[in-house]
């Protein structure tokens, strides 16, 4: 049974608080010169600060992510000239923007019988943004 030294066993025994009440623990801390009340306040302050930091970190991350995506979209300006649109549509349908983009475009055309220039511009914008997001995701991986 014995596979650890006595000091380790003793400290393991002392660390096990099973069967002790809160009062027992407070009294033991006081015997060791620890002010339990002040310790409790310090711990509670620390816990509050850490949970606040975590909450703020989440918000900061979300804000950064949003700014990154917005920058990505802003940098991708589509010139709405018809020739440009036509060329882009051909690129998309020939798979130049990836298989996902071309199947998305095909589905889009199947649904709509007729397309206005605005429809095409909006579709291209979506596909370009999708493509940029995918590229950005691949870079990060």
């Amino acid at each position, binding site marked *: *049974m*014995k*596979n*650890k*030294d*006595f*000091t380790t*066993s*003793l400290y*393991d*025994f*002392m660390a*096990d608080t*099973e*069967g*002790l009440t809160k009062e*027992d623990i407070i009294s*033991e801390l006081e*015997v*060791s*010169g620890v002010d339990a009340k002040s310790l409790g306040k310090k711990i509670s302050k620390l816990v509050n600060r850490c949970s606040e930091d975590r909450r703020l970190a989440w918000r900061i991350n979300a804000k950064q992510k949003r700014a990154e995506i917005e920058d990505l979209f802003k940098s991708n300006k589509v010139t709405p000239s018809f020739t440009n649109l036509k060329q882009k549509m051909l690129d998309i349908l020939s798979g130049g923007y990836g298989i996902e983009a071309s199947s998305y475009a095909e589905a889009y055309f199947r649904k709509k019988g007729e397309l206005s220039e605005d429809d095409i511009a909006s579709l291209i914008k979506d596909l370009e943004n999708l493509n940029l997001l995918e590229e950005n995701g691949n870079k990060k991986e």
Partner: protein
Amino acid sequence: MDQEPSVEEQLISKEKEEKEKKLKAELAVAVKGDEELELLLMCIEDGIVKAEAIALETNWDITRVYNANKRFRRLALKILNQSNSM
């Protein structure tokens, strides 16, 4: 391949051994005459430290183990605090 411990390691190990011997001796003196605490010290020496395991080893019910543990802890704390403040 086992390497010979350095002089420094040997000294540290010797010092640790001496401290442990002293701690054991002080605890043995503190619990002397109290059968329950003597038995508890033997359990700890054997690495049996969990209340349930102590209950199994000693055939005590768990409440008796808890009470003996409390008494032992009080003595041990005093000794540990003294040796830490030295």
